[in-house]
């Protein structure tokens, strides 16, 4: 299978969705964030004149515009850039888009994608480092997609754009340079299919987004010591493929959940609670959560590292459930 960098796969997917459907528009142009690769996006702007639009700094108005355009038959992909700025658009995402299909009695469809880059990017400090996916999961009506590999970003972006529902596409800047196999052709990856990123029989690590990469690195270390870690990546939180997660849990009976949301009411809390509920009598040890500590994000590197779901904290949690 050909290898690709994550940023290449993402750019390829953006071109593919634009090509596949005349109704697709990209609103804003920082799909690669602050990455030095971001200039490559210029290619897309050149290839699809009029299909990429630069908006003012008005996240609320712009997301609302995209939602309204989706209701009226377009398929807009809005780039909110840093996920923290989704808060500016919160009333539109959470109280308009999420409710539209339901409160219209299943009549108004909102095929919009909200693209954003979440998490601890390194030096983003308190106001630019949020992971809003837990808050969003608390809002029924939104699909939530968290790619973690070149293959996934390509396949999931297509399904996100093809979906008739409002979909939040939550990316992570630290993934952009990762390389990995991406199959030829351009098959979308259906939303709601978890992926076993690494097979193992001793302990299950359920991880999302960039944490999948971190979990795999840790799994590598454990493999060297003869402990086989299975890494399960839900890939989408809504819809959630809980069967795949539970199949792994039933096999290993020891679970660590790793996610970059803050600890309290984070994604790890929900996944852990569901695993407990379904696996109470199967678990050999309490499920461990590794999340960003309940602290505003500090700027200073050492402090940021201290609160992050770091490799060392994942290692410790695995020891915890093995011990």
């Amino acid at each position, binding site marked *: 299978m050909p290898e690709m960098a994550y940023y290449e796969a993402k750019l390829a997917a953006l071109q593919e969705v634009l090509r596949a459907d005349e*109704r697709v*528009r990209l609103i804003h142009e920082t799909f690669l964030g602050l990455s030095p690769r971001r200039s490559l996006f210029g290619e897309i702007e050149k290839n699809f004149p009029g299909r990429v*639009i630069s*908006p*003012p700094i*008005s996240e*609320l*108005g*712009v*997301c*609302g*515009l*995209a*939602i*309204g*355009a*989706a*209701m*009226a*038959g*377009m*398929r*807009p992909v809005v780039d909110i850039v840093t996920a923290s700025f989704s808060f500016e658009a919160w*009333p*539109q995402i959470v*109280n*308009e888009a999420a409710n*539209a*299909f*339901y*409160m*219209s*009695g*299943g*009549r*108004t*469809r909102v*095929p919009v994608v909200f693209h954003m880059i979440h998490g601890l990017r390194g030096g983003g400090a308190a106001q630019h480092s949020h992971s809003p996916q837990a808050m969003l999961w608390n809002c*029924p*009506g939104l*699909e939530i997609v968290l790619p973690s590999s070149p293959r996934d970003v390509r396949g999931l972006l297509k399904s996100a754009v*093809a*979906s*008739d*529902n409002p979909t939040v596409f939550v990316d992570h800047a630290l993934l952009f340079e990762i390389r990995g196999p991406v199959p030829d052709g351009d098959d979308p990856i259906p939303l709601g299919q978890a992926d076993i990123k690494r097979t193992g029989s001793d302990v299950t690590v359920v991880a999302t987004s960039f944490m999948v990469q971190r979990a795999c690195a840790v799994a590598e270390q454990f493999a060297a010591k003869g402990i086989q870690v299975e890494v399960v990546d839900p890939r989408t939180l809504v*819809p959630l493929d809980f069967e795949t997660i539970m199949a792994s849990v039933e096999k290993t009976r020891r679970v660590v959940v790793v996610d970059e949301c803050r600890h309290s009411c984070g994604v790890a809390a929900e996944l852990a609670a569901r695993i407990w509920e379904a696996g109470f009598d199967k678990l050999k040890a309490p499920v461990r959560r590794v999340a960003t500590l309940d602290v505003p994000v500090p700027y200073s590197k050492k402090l940021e590292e201290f609160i992050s779901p770091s490799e060392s904290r994942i290692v410790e949690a695995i020891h915890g459930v093995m011990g």
Partner: protein
Amino acid sequence: MLPRLPRDNLLELCRKMLLIRHFEEGLITLHNEGRFRGHYHVYIGQEATGVPALSLLEASDYVFTTHRNHGHVLARGAAPGRVLAEILGRRDGYNGGKGGTFHVAPVELGFLQTSAVVGGIIPLATGAAYAAKEKKSGQVSVCLFGDGALEEGAAVESFNLASLWKLPVLYLCENNGKYGHGRATSAIRSSSMAVFPLTDLPAAYKIPAQQVEGTDAGLVLTVIGEAIRRLRRGEGPQFIEAQTVRWPGSVSNWPVLPVRTQVAFAWDMKAVPEAVKEWYQFSDPVLLFIRELLDEGHASKEEILDMQTSVADEIDEAIKFAFDSPEPDPKSALENIFAAEKRGGCDA
């Protein structure tokens, strides 16, 4: 000023206004009887804005409205029975009872989303206009909201987008005296909006903006008709502020019916309680319109009385229809969270 329209059209406008009035008055009675629940808002006093304005649209145009939507959906031809069923939370409501009074949205009439978040629809309507422009469909998007919505940042962010991208959206601000407690423009300044007149705000964004007397159907038709022509010519967004005087029944947080409107008030005010006489004499758009019809000889009192009877019958039927409609199956609460198949856009 009576619109320059054939008699049939004039009578049709009158009938719709009267229908809305009777619908809303009937609704207040139903609420007083405890027959539906929840906070709700009525369109009494604004009929001469919504009815003529929406009569100017094509079937394919989009309309976005708010918590004060009943009059708008009826003006555009929604079946009163299905509107009421929605307000009662019944299965035959336009939205299966899931929306309720805040969110009545007959999608087949171009109502894509009815939001009760103040300011919420302004970006949405702007987006539908963006879609119309991109699709080159010739559609326009009409956004009906209250004066209070201009206090929300969402309004100006939308004005900026619409102006920059020349979107075919009509911002129709119905200034009904803010919260029903006072008038935000004209003589009295608002305690919650420093912009005065309100048209200064869209004007700062280079959006053509005018005021119109919202109780005068003829003026509304003229002014909005011109605005819609400018929209269709691709001249970009338009803003109209339609001013109406607070209906005395909306002083408090919940509507209170001071008197049931009778078309006969148009020529005989005796039965109107003293405390509210002024409003029904000078500011009631329905009675004003009837008086004009009579004065200019377009209808006789008998014809108007007949119209009232027919409207009352229609409302009675609507009430029967709505109450006959079954409650939704509780388990259906779990349906319609997500669209399954891929179709895009809306039902319409």
